[in-house]
């Protein structure tokens, strides 16, 4: 399926875009994480990379759907 991903902070700089569409093999957040790591190896250099689904932090087991709002959350640094 095709998913759209928002990228923030340093993950946006690594991916080179604020938003990318992505052909995903698999159906879970973990599958997405693996595909991303292959395509953008620099993501593995991050201290952490959370994936939010519909504006909530999601675990690797969480399922993904084409209509989900998906976002990459590298280490936050607000405040």
């Amino acid at each position, binding site marked *: 399926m095709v998913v759209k991903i*928002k990228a*923030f*902070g*340093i993950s946006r*700089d*690594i991916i080179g875009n604020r938003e990318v569409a992505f052909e995903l093999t698999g159906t879970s957040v973990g599958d997405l994480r693996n595909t991303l790591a292959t395509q953008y190896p*620099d993501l593995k*250099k*991050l*201290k952490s990379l959370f994936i*939010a689904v519909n*504006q*909530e*932090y999601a675990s690797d087991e969480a399922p993904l759907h084409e209509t989900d709002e998906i*976002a990459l*959350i*590298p*280490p*936050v*640094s*607000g*405040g």
Partner: protein
Amino acid sequence: MIEIIDKPIDVQKIISAASSRSGGAVNVFIGTVRNQTSSKKVTRLEYEAYEPMAVAEMNKIIQQADKQWNLTGWAVSHRVGTLHPGDVAVVIALSTAHRKESFEACQYVIDTLKQTVPIWKKEFFEDGDTCFRASIKKRQTSLTLLIR
């Protein structure tokens, strides 16, 4: 109230929004941009937020603080966009019946905000370097320079 704004934060407005007649104590935390980070001179910062999620996460933090310390009032404002040294980046104001709770609750909120709320700051240094704070694993700092 919880807000993410791209203009200077009106600190007095945030404090007023958090104050309450039944609370005797207001604790306010104000985070400002320092002119220095680990001996390098900062010229400006850029803050960005994943806005709807950031507001939702701040809301969760406030709900948790309210459960634990019984807030009589609260307000949080985080600025985004370009900031310079001395500018206010975040203001958290909480009121409680007694002062000890106001300190504990406010410290909980800022500590948790820094861990969970999707906001990022990119630092711009005098020497031309930039970096996303605390993003990179140790021994990978070269990425900092790779990504401008």
